[in-house]
């Protein structure tokens, strides 16, 4: 009996892409410096399940490829191998390659075996560490250019001077080197065959005789070999002991110190010889040779990926992954409905008028369950915006490397839930905007320092709900938009009349005009003047709008407002008089029971409350909303809900807290209009309407 495996393919591919994503984000986290075994484990698990799955489905190419990655990761996981930037780059490249392979398989196209082979070789080189022969002239990954680089260094040195060249080797074996059957003396002899060599031994670590273990190696050596020797040959000698010692190989040239230091290949704490590739910046020329071929590589790979990614996405868009808790809630509700229904039919079987109250109760219950169910079903369509955000760390990493800028990406509000349709459509415009920020917004490090800003620029991606809208902000602290330049450019392009007087907002609007670009040079990242108009059109087609706030020299904030009729937020319901309002839980810091006597007045009007050591302004909700206060409010008792707005605290004085709940945000604007201090409305369990407070708007309103 054979099982048709193809029915599971879709699931397999989805899992693979998910795995690749987690691997990618893991790898990007790794390169921030601190090495976290948990992160490596995550990456490893991703690779492992892809390998397993592809084996099962008979995609041997994928399985083989992943196997090599897995081996490399396994060594990192066990601590047998340092995690180095080149290794990460190769792995990232491989992740891209895997993705391409999988998308081709998914689309039932043939896999580009040449590309696969390239990454395979790169991985193998990384793995064996014997970068002895650069197999291709076009560097395929970071390993090879790095190796080329080592040779370039030699060439540079050759041209500049005729000194003796050689290698300084610090060889510091671990205690158990001898137990592995390696004999240092044999290796030294081999070294001697390469050229003139001298050796000095360091005996400082030898313990007192009583504690001496004859099987331990307590010695370390400093060696010098003179001669024009390729580094790989030296590496080869130490190949056998790479896991058992600390090795420090540096090239040097005698007489002239300068080129020696430039061409020095240092290895601070990296024992395995592979790490030579970690030094891609010795001589300026060499650095260039390395950076330019290696950096665009992942970029290109990604560019290749994009169309296929898109097609894969459109194919996958028919399915949705849902948090199981959501499904469980739904199933619970269906259960409730069934119970209520059977109760009702029981009443209906022998109905007498005295059961009327019972019937009514049952119907009310049914109505309520159905409403809840409706809400849960809508909830299923909601996915966190991290689905879009998760791809940006990679984008920023790649582009910033390419541009030579230092950029930190901050993601805020990743768990904000958005309708799936919105998520899919917003992704491309966002990519465009982020690229713009990277390319035009953030300055080069030198420029930033000159402007008195921190060398590393930041781009913040921030998503939050506001009323029936989701707001996505892209905030950079780069150079900002230059109004004068924008206007000049617009006039030059004939898009604007020479004598036109524009406000800031109008001037910034110019960048949305078709064919408008102020970039001095066109790069492959941006500057062609198509794009912003497309971005705006896309966003408008979603029923949203896009706005720019910018300050020259300080940065730019682009905010996108998208309508979101299905948005669900966590709220705290509070009572003010007879009214119930919902305060978004995200803005609440704490709530305190108080009596009026605890408030202080300023100039007889403005009230403050002393929250620990800080006086915070108080907004009396029934005053600002003109609600008839209840008796309770007259006694001066109430609750202060401390809310935060852009780092500023403020207290809302309400009668009492009613409890937290999830609410479906409904727009007030559909049939009504925008109301000050209110971001939307929701329908409570009893069918009545409660207003959702817009904290920033409320604070602004009360300040007037």
């Amino acid at each position, binding site marked *: 009996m054979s099982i048709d495996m193809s029915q599971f393919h879709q699931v397999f591919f989805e899992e693979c892409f998910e795995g690749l994503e987690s691997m990618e984000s893991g790898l990007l986290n790794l390169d921030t410096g601190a090495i976290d075994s948990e992160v490596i484990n995550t990456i490893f698990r991703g690779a492992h399940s892809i390998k397993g799955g592809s084996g099962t489905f008979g995609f041997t190419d994928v399985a083989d490829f992943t196997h090599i990655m897995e081996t490399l990761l396994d060594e990192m996981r066990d601590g047998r191998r340092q995690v180095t930037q080149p290794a990460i780059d190769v792995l990232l490249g491989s992740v891209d390659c895997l993705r391409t392979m999988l998308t081709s398989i998914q689309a039932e196209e043939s896999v580009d075996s040449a590309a696969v082979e390239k990454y395979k070789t790169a991985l193998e080189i990384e793995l064996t560490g014997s970068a002895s022969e650069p197999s291709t002239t076009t560097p395929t990954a970071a390993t090879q250019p790095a190796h080329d680089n080592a040779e370039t260094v030699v060439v540079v040195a050759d041209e500049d001077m005729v000194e003796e060249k050689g290698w300084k080797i610090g060889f510091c074996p671990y205690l158990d080197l001898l137990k592995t059957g390696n004999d240092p003396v044999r290796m030294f002899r081999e070294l001697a065959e390469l050229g003139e060599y001298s050796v000095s031994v360091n005996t400082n670590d030898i313990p007192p005789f009583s504690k001496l273990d004859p099987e331990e190696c307590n010695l370390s050596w400093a060696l010098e070999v003179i001669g024009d020797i390729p580094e790989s040959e030296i590496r080869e000698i130490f190949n056998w002991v790479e896991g058992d010692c600390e090795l420090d190989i540096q090239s040097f040239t005698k007489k002239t110190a300068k080129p020696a230091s430039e061409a020095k290949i240092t290895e601070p704490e990296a024992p395995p010889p592979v790490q030579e590739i970690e030094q891609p910046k010795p001589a300026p020329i060499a650095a260039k040779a390395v950076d330019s071929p290696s950096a665009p590589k992942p970029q290109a790979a990604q560019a290749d990926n994009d169309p296929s990614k898109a097609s894969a996405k459109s194919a996958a868009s028919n399915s949705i992954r849902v948090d199981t808790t959501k499904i469980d809630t739904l199933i619970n509700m269906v259960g409730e409905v069934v119970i209520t229904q059977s109760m009702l039919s029981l009443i209906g079987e022998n109905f007498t008028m005295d059961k009327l109250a019972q019937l009514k109760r049952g119907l009310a219950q049914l109505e309520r369950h159905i409403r809840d169910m409706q809400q849960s079903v809508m909830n299923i369509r909601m996915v966190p915006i991290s689905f879009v955000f998760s791809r940006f760390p990679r984008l920023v990493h790649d582009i910033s490397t390419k541009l030579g800028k230092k950029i930190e990406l901050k993601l805020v509000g990743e768990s904000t839930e958005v309708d799936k349709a919105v998520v899919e459509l917003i992704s491309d415009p966002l990519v465009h905007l982020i690229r713009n920020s990277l390319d035009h917004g953030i300055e080069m490090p030198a420029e930033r320092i000159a402007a008195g800003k921190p060398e590393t620029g930041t781009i913040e991606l921030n998503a939050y709900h506001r009323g029936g809208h989701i707001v996505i902000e892209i905030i950079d602290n780069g150079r900002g938009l230059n109004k004068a330049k924008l206007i000049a450019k617009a006039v030059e392009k004939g898009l604007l009349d020479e004598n036109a007087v524009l406000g800031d907002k109008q001037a910034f609007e110019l960048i949305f005009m078709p064919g408008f670009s102020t970039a001095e040079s066109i790069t492959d990242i941006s500057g062609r003047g198509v794009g912003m108009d497309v971005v705006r059109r896309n966003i408008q087609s979603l029923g949203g709008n896009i706005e720019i706030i910018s300050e020259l020299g300080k940065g730019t904030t682009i905010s996108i407002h998208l309508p979101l009729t299905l948005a669900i937020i966590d709220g705290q319901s509070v009572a003010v008089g007879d009214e119930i309002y919902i305060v978004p839980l995200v803005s609440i810091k704490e709530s305190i029971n108080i009596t009026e006597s605890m408030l202080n007045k300023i100039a007889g009007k403005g009230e403050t409350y002393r929250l620990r050591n800080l006086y915070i302004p108080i907004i009396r909700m029934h005053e600002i909303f003109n609600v008839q206060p209840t008796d309770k409010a007259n006694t001066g008792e109430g609750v202060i809900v401390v809310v935060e707005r852009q780092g500023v605290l403020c207290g809302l004085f309400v009668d009492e807290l009613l409890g937290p709940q999830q609410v479906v945000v*409904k*727009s007030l604007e*559909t049939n*009504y209009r925008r109301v000050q201090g*209110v971001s939307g409305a929701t329908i409570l369990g009893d069918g*009545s*309407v409660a207003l959702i407070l817009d904290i920033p708007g409320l604070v602004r309103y009360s300040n007037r």
Partner: protein
Amino acid sequence: MSEELKTKGDNQNRHNKEQVNGVQYLSFTLANEEYGVDILRVQEIRSWEPVSRIPNVPHYEKGVVNLRGSIVPIIDLREKLGIKFTEYTPLTVVVVLQTSDEKKTRTMGVVVDSVSDVITLDKTKIQDAPDFGAKISNEFINGLVSLNDRMVILLDVDKLLKLEETEEQDAGDN
């Protein structure tokens, strides 16, 4: 034969003419005065139920209710037209109307004392509202019509329910 056809055609024409000129209105009362709105704008008639108040809006905008999942504002027509406010009773009725402006269509409810009837009017009989000068604003009034010696005031739904947009105070926020 051809004459016969012609008469038939004439009959048809006359019939059409009635159709063209005949419009149906829903009439309701406010303080013993009779008003009418285009019946095609009426979505439904509901009894009054408590609303959720909206803060800091004109007093005639009573609040919002949940109408099968959408939030619908309720406007007191007495107050909107400047008639003395009376307490709501179980007989108080909300007429849910469709209104549209250049941007979009909205659904809104208006509170009236009671709904009277569906009346069919001849368009040509509708008289323009006289100019009351500054005493009474006639901007919402489409016209007046006499029905069984009672005067019915026909209201222009779109103008009546046009919300005065509060100025965008928080423009700087966006």
